[in-house]
Every structure is written in structure tokens, then in C-alpha cells.
């Protein structure tokens, strides 16, 4: 394949990775930014989104787009509710202590994974894409659905940005992020903000899971990779910075696409991890983070 089309395909693949990653990582960044909780179970919320999408799709008869649309609504809401429950039952009782919540979310990771294994089973199961469109370019064909994923992620991220900057809920979340004691002194119900943030973060991961499932199938072990990549993105972007997360997701996604295509996927992972190390050494607060 000639260089031009080769690069085009690499960029398209990279954009899909970046889109899904940006969604998942922004959930992680939000939870860390506002709550200072390192959520190790974040990848499992991603997996649950995909798995619930499969259940919804297999329960709803009719055309694929209808089942998919239902999954797009049901899965993130169900996962958000589950996350709110986990917040109330576990994180709140630990008083959001940074170390204790890491251990607690590791426990949550295993519980969710094993629950999925028990209820959903060990198989990878496909969910039909909402529409069957293939773009035939002169050099290669490409899935129209993958382009839809990019667009959908962009819309959702714009929505999150608007929520954070233009609504009262966003204002309250940002206030809590800056100083939770002062926020509480101003009458903000910090516990409710935390619960809402944790649910929103999990819902974003689940949404990413629903979007990816027509491409890669739902499997109970699928949460591992997005967790690792989300952490990489969040560390590079600056913990808690949404803008940084977006930029880092684009950098990691696109470089992953281009490097894995021209060299090898393993090299792409090596370079991403190296980048994390360099950022931690030379700019520990991340590219867009602020020193605390």
C-alpha cells in the first residue's frame, strides 16, 4: 500500500482509539479531579457498559439501530446507578481516603469482573452495529460505524465540557475540586457532589464501552486495556484536567494508530509508557495540570 493511503488508514484507526479513550479517560480524570479518588475499577465500568449493551440488544427485538439506541441509554444509566451505590456503600465509608479507596476499588474491580463472569459467562459476544455502512475508498474499505464512534464521542465530550463550564452542577463540581472544605462551608452538599461525580465518571466509561462493543465484542476481561490506557492519558494530560485528558487522548490515540501501523503495536505501547515516565520526571503535574 502506498504511503498516503497507509497514513490515512493509520490516522483513522488512531482517531477511533482516541475517541473511545477520551471518553473513558475523561471519566477517570473527573473522578480524580473532583474526588481525589484513583478509581482502579474504572475499566470494569467500561466492560459493564459493553456487557449490558449485549443484554439490552439481545432482549430488544426489531432493527439493530433500535436495540443499540436503547443500549446507549440503558447501559450508562445502569452503570452510573451501580457506581452511585458503590460510592454510598464503600467510598463514602472510607471518607474518600486516597490510599484506602485505591485498595477498595481494586476489590471492586475483582467483584465486578467475577460477577460479569458468573452472570454473563466467559464468551465474547457480538452486538450488531446500529447501521451497516462500509466506505469503499480507492485503496481500502472502512467501517462507517467507526466514523460514527468518532463523531459520537466528540458530541458527548462537548456535552461534558458544556456541563462543567456552563451549568450550576459544573460550577459546584469545580468548586468541590478546588477545595472541598470551603465548598462545604458555602453550603454545597459535598457527599452528593461526590456521588454524582463518581456516577458520571462510571457512566462515561460505560458509554465508551457501548460505543466500542459493535467493533470488538463484549468480554468479561475487556476492562484491562482501557484502564491502563486511561491512566496513561490522565497522567500525561494532568490529573483532573479535562482539557489535558482530551489532548493526551488524541496524542496517545493517534500515535498508537500511526506507530502500530508503521512499526508495531508493541512499540506503540512501549513509547506511550515511556512518555508517562518522562512526564512524571519532568512535569509531574502533567501537561495541563496545575501544581498543588
Amino acid at each position, binding site marked *: 500500500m502506498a504511503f498516503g493511503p497507509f497514513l490515512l488508514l*493509520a490516522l483513522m*484507526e488512531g482517531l477511533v482509539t482516541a475517541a473511545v479513550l477520551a471518553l473513558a479517560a475523561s471519566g477517570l480524570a473527573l473522578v480524580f479531579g473532583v474526588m481525589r479518588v484513583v478509581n482502579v475499577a474504572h475499566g470494569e465500568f467500561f466492560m459493564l457498559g459493553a456487557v449490558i449493551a449485549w443484554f439490552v440488544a439481545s432482549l430488544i427485538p426489531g432493527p439493530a439501530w433500535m436495540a443499540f439506541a436503547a443500549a446507549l441509554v440503558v447501559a450508562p444509566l445502569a452503570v452510573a446507578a451501580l457506581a452511585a451505590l458503590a460510592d454510598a456503600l464503600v467510598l463514602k465509608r472510607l471518607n474518600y481516603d486516597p490510599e484506602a479507596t485505591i485498595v477498595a476499588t481494586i476489590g471492586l474491580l475483582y467483584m465486578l469482573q467475577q460477577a460479569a463472569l458468573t452472570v454473563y459467562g*466467559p*464468551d*465474547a459476544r457480538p452486538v450488531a452495529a446500529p447501521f*451497516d455502512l*462500509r466506505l469503499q475508498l480507492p485503496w*481500502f*474499505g472502512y467501517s462507517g460505524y467507526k466514523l460514527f464512534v468518532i463523531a459520537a464521542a466528540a458530541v458527548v465530550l462537548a456535552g461534558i465540557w458544556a456541563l462543567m463550564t456552563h451549568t450550576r452542577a459544573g460550577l459546584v463540581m469545580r468548586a468541590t475540586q478546588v477545595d472541598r472544605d470551603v465548598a462545604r462551608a458555602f453550603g454545597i452538599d459535598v457527599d452528593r457532589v461526590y456521588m454524582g461525580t463518581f456516577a458520571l465518571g462510571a457512566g462515561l466509561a460505560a458509554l465508551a464501552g457501548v460505543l466500542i462493543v459493535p467493533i470488538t465484542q463484549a*468480554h468479561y476481561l475487556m476492562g484491562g486495556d482501557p484502564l491502563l490506557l486511561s491512566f496513561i492519558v490522565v497522567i500525561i494530560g494532568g490529573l483532573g484536567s479535562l482539557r489535558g485528558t482530551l489532548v493526551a487522548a488524541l496524542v496517545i490515540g493517534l500515535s498508537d494508530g500511526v506507530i502500530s501501523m508503521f512499526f508495531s503495536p508493541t512499540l506503540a505501547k512501549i513509547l506511550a509508557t515511556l512518555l508517562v515516565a518522562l512526564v512524571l520526571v519532568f512535569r509531574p503535574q502533567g501537561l495541563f495540570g496545575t501544581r498543588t
Partner: protein
Amino acid sequence: MTSLLMPTRRALLMGAGAGLLATALPAVVGAQAAPIKIGFQLHRTGIGASYGRWYERTAQAALKLINDGGGIAGRPVEILFEDDATDPKRGAEVVDKLTQSDGCDLVMGTLFSHVVMGSAPRAGELKVPYLVCSEGYHVASGALNRWTLQPGITDVRAQISTMAPWVSANLGKKVTMVFPDYAFGHDHRDFFTKAMAEQGGEVIAQIAIPPTETSFTRYFPQIPAETEVLYHVMVGPAVLTFVKELGEFYGTGAKPALFGFVDSLEAVDTATSGLEFLEGSHFWEAHPRVKPADAGEHEAAYRAAVGVDDMGASVSDPADISTYSHMFSTWETLYFIKQAMEAAGYTGPADRQKLVEAMEAITDLPYGLERPQGAKLFNGKTHQVFGAQYISKVEAGKLVKVHSTTIDEGLYPDAVDYTAMSF
């Protein structure tokens, strides 16, 4: 009242007698019918789960038949299934548990080659027969030990050497290979490349894909444009994604002829939407999934016993597609165990060495209900069995058998003589 507190001598004696009898009875019954315990290392979870599900069903079906027919040497047979999560480290622990804690007479059933590689050394240390159902060349290559045998399924090297002549004669000479980047995939890479060269063909590109990969489009541009045949063999939960993305990539444009190992489609319905581009492409099969018109006389009974319909799906759920080209190996391995145990006069774990020697002495394994895939030839020196192979073509979304090979086509010179090794 008094009789309870002060029992008579007669009552005491009777009670003691009854007690003695009660303790002795199970020992007598036990000696007559202590079951033979077979440990089954099962991929119930992890990336091999769809294979594991069918391996368990097939083994259960064969077990029922064997027990209905009087068991092994008159003793009933039990199988203890233990999940290894398709993980090599866990695999070795499972061999350990089945042998040491559960007291199994032998261990069988492993499919994924990395688990075999991780578990076989432990079986050798424990001196317990370890019968794998894996296809890998690792047994016959001499990499393992005297306690590891593969009596139920032909190895990759033999499968491939029978495929290469057909591929070069019918599909093309310039081949690009796509395979998983570990032991099983490397067997494909090494032996197919060699076998094609012997046929005057050439492998022009080898694309190795990490076994945990979930997205494949990025690998396809490495396929050279002059490729005439794309040879693909993938395993694990992402196989459907692999074939779908391959279809998206080539779509309606010009594409090379596709030749795949059915591993790329095991447990996947060939009529799934998105797989239309497979129409007209060819697959290796060990045991044709869709019942051929000229199937052997025992095919129907085997399908009924394992619960598979003529299309290769579960009789209870048409969406549950079997791993038909692999699962027969557990059935045939169980019958192999029966034959060897009866020949060796096996009585218990003390006879394990005698059992392996009896297995090594087996050669001809004729077609029958014991071997639904077909007649086989067992090589006691290399611990490997050899059987016929098949090529099927996708026609109207169905795999239709178009070519059969003979056992002889797959034979190659011995690379090892395990019988010369110590136990």
C-alpha cells in the same frame, strides 16, 4: 430402662458384630468398583472458554457412553473438571491439584499450547500421564517429556504439510500469513513457510499478531499487494472481530484468495452478518462442521451424543456454534485411555509407568464410534497421532467439504524418540 443402661452380653455382641460389618462393607464394595478418576484441565474461563465449553460437553458424552458400556476394565470412570482460566501458570497448578489433592489417575484435555507448555513440565515431575488435545507440534517436536502424549488430534505440522500442496495447486503461489504470535502460531509460520517452499511457492510476508489483540485493521496494510493467497489462523475471543475487520478492509475491492484454519471461525456462525466476504473462501477443517453427504456411518451417533445438529450448532441453541474441528479429540483421547488401561491391566497410580508404555505400544486406531473423526495412526516414539484432514469451501454461508487428505500425506520423519527417555 435397665436394658439400655446395663445391656445384656448378647445385645452387646450383636451390636459389635453389626458395627464391624458396617465398617467392612464399604471397603468390600469399594474394592469391586473404585472409579477410575480422570482429571480434566479445562479452559472454562479465559480466552479459551468457547473451546472449553465444548470440550466439557464432548468429554461428558464420551464418558456416559464408556460407563454405559461397562466402564474401563469393569470399573466406572469419573472425570474431575478443573478450570485453568486458559492461563499457563494456573495450568501447572491445576495439574498439581488434580494429581495430588484429587488423586486422579491421569490428566487430559488441554487445548491452548501456551497452557500445555506451562503444564507439561509439572506433569513430568509428578510422573502423571498428561494427554493433551492441543494440535501444537510441541509434543512431536521433542520439547516435552515421556509423560506427555497427544493421542486424539493431529498436530499442526502434519495438518499444514497436507494443506500446502493443495493451496499452491489451487489458490496461488505467493502467500501472506497472519497468525497469533506464540507457540501455536509459530508452528504455523515455520511449517507452512517450509511446506510452501517445497511446493515451489513462497511466503512473502508473515504478520504476527499478539494473542490478546482486540483490533486488527492496523495490521492489514502490511499485506503486500502482490499477495495471491492470504493464509489466516487466529484464536481466542477476538476471532469474529478479526474476520469482520478483514471483510471491511477488502470489502468489494480486489482481494487475494483466502485460506484459513477454521480456528479463525470456531464457535462463530459462518452466516453472521459482516462475514459475507468469506463466500467462496476455503478453510482447513479437522472434522467438517456441516455434516458432509458422504460422512461416515458413526457421524450421526456422535453428533447425537454430543448434542450437535447437522449444521454444527448445539441442538438446544442454534446460535451456540460448536468447536467441531477440535472437540472430537477429547472423545478420542478418552477411548485411547480406555484401550491403554485395559491393555496394561491398570489398577492404580502405581501402574502409571506401565500405562504410558501401553500407550506407546498402540499404533493402528481404526475408524469407529471410538474415533468419529476418522482412522488414526499413533506414533509411540513421538507420542503423536495422525489422521486425515479436510478442506471446506464457504458456499451460501455454509462450510462445504471439497477435499480430503490421507493420513500418509501428513507423516514426517520423527524428531524425537520419547521411548528412549527415562521416566
